[in-house]
């Protein structure tokens, strides 16, 4: 009986936090999304589905987000995996720490400043000028979807590297030896032993990066020149420029629903992969 009370007491702060910071705002968003824009902006109470019916007006923003977020996640995975593999399996212990620190160091500076650096790298006097030296002219990088993709992959790479690194680090090296002893060539060992064992890391990394990318607005704003629009940018605009809180809430609620659906599907997929292999049990 006493243990139950202690449990409740200890869970109180977390419960209060979630109620005030998560549940309550979501309820407000839900209520606002059925309202109307005030005459000078803001919100006036109403019950209408107009805001949801107007969602197609943000189709491109949803499309950009739903294309570039998975693309960015995939690109980050393809770049991060070899790096994490090298760090966890190949690097000598002496170098490992130094290299790990080097992956973390950029995090000491705000993402805002690092993204600003990319404005100069991708801008007319950056890479395009270098390309002109070798005869490739007229390349424009800044303010294109490609620039945004580069920015998000750069910004979120460490979040992908670390989970994969951790899962590879735990990998029992004797398994690799066993596989080799039994006659597997290195590629097959990788495919049948290393890769399956690192799936928890891949799954976690992809999830982290994907969820954050779905809400991203800073990188598209800075590297897309206001032309490559994510849902995050549409939301900022609706609340801070056109002051249409009702419509903004409807867009936000829709984004939450899309996220719930995609993440649930994703977890199911990962769980199924996990079931097939008893050694992989995650999430």
């Amino acid at each position, binding site marked *: 009986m006493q243990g139950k009370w202690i449990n409740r007491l200890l869970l109180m702060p977390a419960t209060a936090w979630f109620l005030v910071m998560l549940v309550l705002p979501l309820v407000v968003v839900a209520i606002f999304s059925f309202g109307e824009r005030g005459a000078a*902006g803001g919100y006036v109470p109403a019950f209408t589905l107009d805001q949801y019916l107007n969602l197609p007006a943000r189709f491109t923003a949803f499309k950009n987000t739903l294309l570039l977020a998975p693309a960015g996640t995939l690109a980050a995975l393809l770049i991060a995996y070899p790096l994490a593999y090298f760090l966890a399996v190949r690097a000598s212990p002496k170098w490992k720490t130094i290299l790990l620190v080097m992956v973390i160091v950029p995090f000491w500076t*705000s993402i*805002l400043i690092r993204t600003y650096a990319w404005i100069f790298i991708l801008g007319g*006097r950056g890479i395009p000028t270098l390309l002109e030296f070798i005869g490739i002219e007229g390349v424009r990088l800044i303010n294109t979807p490609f620039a945004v993709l580069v920015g998000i992959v750069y910004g979120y790479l460490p979040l992908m590297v670390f989970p994969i690194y951790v899962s590879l680090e735990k990998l029992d090296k004797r398994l690799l030896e066993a596989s080799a002893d039994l006659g597997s060539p290195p590629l097959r060992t990788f495919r049948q032993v290393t890769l399956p064992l690192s799936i928890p890391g891949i799954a976690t990394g992809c999830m982290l990066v994907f969820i954050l990318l779905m809400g991203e*607005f800073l990188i598209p704003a*800075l590297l897309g020149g206001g*032309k490559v629009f994510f849902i995050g940018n549409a939301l900022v605009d609706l609340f*801070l420029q056109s*002051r249409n809180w009702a419509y903004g809430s409807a867009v936000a609620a829709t984004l939450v629903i899309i996220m719930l659906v995609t993440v649930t599907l994703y977890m199911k997929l990962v769980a199924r992969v996990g079931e097939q292999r008893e050694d992989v049990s995650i999430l």
Partner: protein
Amino acid sequence: MPKDYKDNMPISRRKFIEELRRYEKGSVSRRHFLGVTGLGFATAVMAGAVPGLRPRKAYSAGELGDRVVLATWPNYHDEANFSAFTKATGVNVQVNVFGSNEEMLAKLQAGGSGWDVFVPTNYTITTYVGEKLIEPLDLKMIPNYAADAFEPRFADAGTVGGTVYAVPKNWGTTGYVVNTKHTKGKKLTTWKEFWDITKTDFSGRTMVHDYQLTTIGNALKYFGYSFNSVDPKELADAEKLLLEVKPHLFAINSDYQPPLRNGDAWMSMCWTGDGKQLNTDMPEMEYVIGKEGGEIWSDFYAVPKRAEHRAAGYALINFLLDPAVNARETLAHGYPVADSRTNKLLPKELLEDPILYPAQELLDTLEFGAAATLTDPNRAELLARFKSA
């Protein structure tokens, strides 16, 4: 940035700290960040963070408090004036820089802006009054404001229903700036040419503002409609043009100076002072007022309701309206003032500058933005659709 005397002086300790703060907060170019993210606040100058540098107060301690928060526009003040104010009053000036009136309104509507003074444009003031967001000014606290010294057409918008809610800061025009190195000798004079050349020779090189009033207004001008039109059919025409032009734009962004200076962009919608600053440093940058018309505007100082450092806010407005101080402001930022006392102190060549004071026949075509234009939901949604298209 205009070259001024400060550029020739070694960086002071305080200036260094200010720059560092700015850098830490990510405002390498503050204006850029603000414009594109719409966040609308990068708190910049925090001289108060360096206690050792606080000057002695001429006012008795605590009379005005130790700080005042000013929400204003980029490149719109002479920082030496703020230092002088701090020296005289002991009040440190904390500056929040914004990219559009919409952002300012959004922030005040959301509540808790924390500003003591801000700088709204003419067409917003009736909305602020209607929404009860600003207070009637206590003119006794602004003795430097002499109503009869100001040209009425730039001062009238501050008075609503016979009550003064805002006093004039600067006025100006919204035209466009074009890098004439790329025009092949062609002289641009109209908004029609602005949009047409964007679709052809200037593809990928043009910038438009990141707010609805001017971007839509100047697209309306392509068809010869009013800058302030809220007519659904006319707005539909403007939207069609904007969507057609969008793939040819370099960016939708009110921070146009950096890309124009480094050569990425060749043309942009532009305010008087930015036109002047760019033209001073790069003579090939020409400031054009479209023959069809466009915007003329007037900015004001106003005090939000429940301002935390109200007395200090009034003291700051009064200080900045001192003609000698105001003249230094204009020399630094290149925006004209409507105050005859200040103009007496300005050099003749500035008062005859065609960028600051365009020819009368050009001025005659310009329109002040209207309150209905600011709050029109269709215009707001049109720009949002254009951006997310």
